């Protein structure tokens, strides 16, 4: 191996000589550079090497290049040979690296990134090699095609790459979309249509795009792809020349995907943008041809907008959009469609500087219809309720709406009740709040209403001065429930008792609640906290130890934290001798997969001591 290294170093000698001759650095610095390089080379000639070795070396060389450039600027000299040899070394490293680790996509990408800047002529060759290994990824093909489009001025090369890509991935949305995009772009680029040949070319480009679209129609079944195509055609520079294509796509969408809410949503949004369906349907081949002729005569760059799309006022557009949504929810009475509908109306109401009345009216109408259809989601109900509360005498309406919603949405009744309670908690109406809370519990059963209990406790906590007794009753009731999720209330109950009554009472309560199933970790933690706060020198540690032991007893199998807490306690306040005993106990009690993390934590504890 040594002789290989020697040879490599000897080959680099001219470079060092020219550095030395130029006098940009001292001999010490030069030796340092040589040593560093030797270190990297050594790693690479070993049989066991990783990609990181290559990356580090490449980065080092790049930094060296930067250093040389800076020196050049400082001393006003030029060292093209040195820089060239550095770059050649980098390229060599990339070549060897990609040969050794062809599966590393990152290295290939880095190589391409590097070559794009310093050696663009080689990029397509690198892509070709990379595709030999990574041809199964459609994004790589796509990158290649787009690079070719950027770099060359000939469309032919680009199209050939895309044809190859499509042969390999005929159903890839990404490749098809990129190809389509480039075809359209090339068409739109030809703006000077005074020449007959250019016009023909433009016509041909459009036809290619159409053929591509028709071809993908047989292969791709993803609606999103077609919507993206249509969106692309709507770009201001392509909107007029692609009219016929748009017509075809819209017709196909209506035929094949009318059951998709996304399609309806998109079409309605198109109306809002001013691209009307009727205008599109009335467009004929002849009209487009006429337009082009006119364009040739007048030599204008852009076709006047009104010739295809009639200009409409915003109000009219909004109402047309609303009309489409109305149709959509009739055709597709699903929750998803309604969600799109109401979201669109909400979007409209973001900006109400112009036509605010119409927009708000549409939103209100949509909410009203949605409520009647019984398919509105809870999120939208919430928005509706919040909005209604902002208007005078909205409360009665909210009550009516929620009552009706409750009847039709049986499966999500608990959420509606929650909404209802939130309304009263906002208005501060305690008696009604409690009434709804009781009603929900009676109708749904306690286990389904955990969120409501949380809400109720939060509410009464805020009003604890006026309704302290009621809070106590609710807490007692919550502590009695045996559903596991109710266990968290016990900790709160304990804290509340401690705050309002005495420590003795809290201890009594704790002893009582420990016994009750299901076990609750928060309860023990809370009691430990209380004991720590109340701790005076006179009280023994036995009470505290009891809490810790309880926690370990119930949760020692699945939780490492309880053990660590106990160990901390014994170390700081309790008996130091017990620590090792507890450690052994923990190791044998914990689940096998938790033991490792426990030991790591324990050793950390010892270090931090």
């Amino acid at each position, binding site marked *: 191996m040594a002789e290989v290294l020697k040879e490599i170093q000897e080959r680099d000698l001219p470079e060092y000589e020219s550095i030395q001759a130029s006098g940009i650095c001292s001999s010490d610095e030069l030796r340092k550079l040589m040593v560093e390089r030797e270190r990297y080379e050594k790693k690479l000639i070993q049989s066991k090497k990783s990609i990181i070795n290559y990356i580090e070396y490449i980065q080092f060389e790049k930094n060296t290049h930067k250093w040389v450039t800076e020196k050049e600027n400082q001393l006003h000299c030029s060292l093209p040979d040195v820089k060239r040899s550095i770059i050649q070394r980098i390229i060599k490293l990339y070549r060897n690296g990609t040969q050794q680790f062809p599966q590393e996509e990152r290295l290939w990408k880095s190589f391409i990134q590097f070559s794009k*800047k310093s050696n663009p002529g080689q990029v397509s060759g690198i892509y070709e090699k990379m595709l030999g290994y990574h041809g199964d990824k459609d994004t790589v093909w796509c990158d290649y095609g*787009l690079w070719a489009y950027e770099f060359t001025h000939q469309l032919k090369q680009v199209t050939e790459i895309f044809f190859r890509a499509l042969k390999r991935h005929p159903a890839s949305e*990404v490749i098809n979309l*990129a190809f389509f995009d480039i075809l359209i772009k090339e068409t739109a680029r030809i703006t000077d249509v005074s020449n007959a040949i250019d016009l023909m070319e433009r016509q041909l480009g459009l036809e290619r795009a159409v053929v591509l679209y028709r071809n993908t129609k047989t292969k791709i079944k993803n609606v999103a792809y077609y919507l993206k195509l249509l969106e692309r055609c709507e770009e201001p520079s392509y909107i007029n020349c692609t009219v016929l294509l748009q017509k075809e796509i819209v017709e196909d969408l209506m035929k094949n995907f009318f059951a998709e809410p996304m399609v309806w949503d998109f079409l309605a949004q198109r109306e809002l943008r001013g691209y009307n369906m009727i205008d599109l349907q009335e467009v004929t081949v002849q009209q487009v041809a006429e337009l082009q002729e006119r364009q040739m005569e007048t030599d204008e760059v852009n076709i006047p907008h009104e010739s295809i799309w009639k200009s409409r006022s915003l109000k009219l557009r909004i109402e047309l959009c609303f009309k489409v949504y109305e149709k959509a929810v009739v055709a597709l009475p699903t929750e998803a469609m309604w969600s799109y509908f109401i979201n669109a109306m909400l*979007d409209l109401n973001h900006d109400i500087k112009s036509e605010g009345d119409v927009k708000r009216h549409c939103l*209100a109408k949509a909410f009203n219809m949605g409520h009647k259809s019984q398919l509105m989601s809870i999120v*939208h109900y919430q928005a509706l309720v919040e909005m209604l509360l902002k208007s005078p005498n909205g409360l009665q309406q909210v009550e009516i709406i929620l009552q009706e919603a409750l009847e039709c949405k049986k499966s999500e009744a608990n959420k509606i009740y929650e909404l209802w309670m939130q309304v009263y908690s906002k208005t501060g109406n305690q008696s009604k709040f409690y009434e709804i809370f009781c009603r929900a519990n009676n109708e749904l059963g306690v286990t389904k209403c955990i969120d409501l209990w949380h809400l109720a406790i939060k509410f009464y906590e805020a009003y604890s001065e006026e309704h302290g007794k009621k809070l106590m009753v609710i807490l007692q009731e919550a502590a009695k429930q045996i559903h596991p999720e109710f266990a968290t209330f016990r900790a709160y109950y304990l804290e509340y008792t401690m705050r309002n009554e005495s420590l003795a009472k809290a201890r009594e309560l704790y002893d009582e609640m420990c016994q009750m199933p299901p076990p609750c970790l928060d309860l023990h933690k809370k009691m430990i906290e209380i004991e720590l706060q109340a701790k005076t020198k006179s009280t023994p540690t036995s009470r505290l130890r009891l809490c810790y032991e309880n926690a370990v007893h119930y949760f020692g199998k699945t939780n490492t934290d309880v053990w660590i807490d106990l160990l901390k306690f014994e170390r700081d306040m309790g008996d130091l001798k017990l620590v090792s005993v507890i450690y052994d106990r923990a190791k044998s009690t914990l689940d096998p997969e938790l033991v490792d993390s426990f030991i790591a934590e324990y050793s950390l504890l010892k270090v931090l001591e």
Partner: protein
Amino acid sequence: MSLFVFDTSGNQDLLKTDSLTAPKINKKQRQVISEKETSSLSSFAAELKNEESDGEKEQYDFFGLPHPSVDISSIIENTLSVSRRKPTQVELEMDHVISMSDEAERKKKEPKPKLKKMIDLDHSDFNEFTGKRDESQIFKTDIQKEIAKSEMVPNLEQLKELPSRSEKKQRILNRIERSKTKGKKWFDMPATEVTEEIQNDLKILQMRSVLDPKHFYKKNDLKVLPKYFQIGTVQHSALDYYSERDVRKNKKHTLVDELLADTEAQKYIKRKNKEIVMMKQKYAQRKAMKKMKKLKKNK
């Protein structure tokens, strides 16, 4: 004019058969769609236009919602952030492609920075503060992934001793492991699972010498059915159409089925079978006669 090589002639029937099949429409939906496609929208548009010219000052019913002057943007914001559909992976990729292609177009137009070929290097990604390049972030090793590769004994601390096997048991396990393939020299040919169908096929292969009287095979190297074998599948090419016309259609799933379908072979096998039965009968008769004679003599 660049030559555009779309293979339209080969594609024509593909175009006719859309793979997209339109979903089933019920009566109501059909009505809605046909309504949409006909002039209802256009008439509506005209209607709206008239309305617009008629009464500009119209009173709108807000169904109890607050007047537009009341600000509700925060409610809208909150609701939309929850209920808006999250884009799928493919959609994100497509968005990325579109932005990339726009960028490519932009770069194509603007003049390229003048870097001397093979001499200058772009140092824009160098971070002056950290002294590192942006690339180094991409090549960071994923520690979690590396750790997952290691073969640690999961609950080492709980165990009294390291897990080990006796030599005898290890030998048995090794044997089982070895018997799964034929070995490295045979490129690890696996022991294929033998189903009834495959077993029948293997038997046919072993007895192939009797199937065709005009064909000679060397004798088998194995007297039992093989344990290590693989079954390949012929991948047909489009050119095969001419060379094996009508053959592929008649191909059966297994060798046995094929034999059963072949009348010529059936006939031959039946005849042979009959001959053998006859010969056996004759031999049995002769043996019986011999025995009788012997009995008589000894009497």
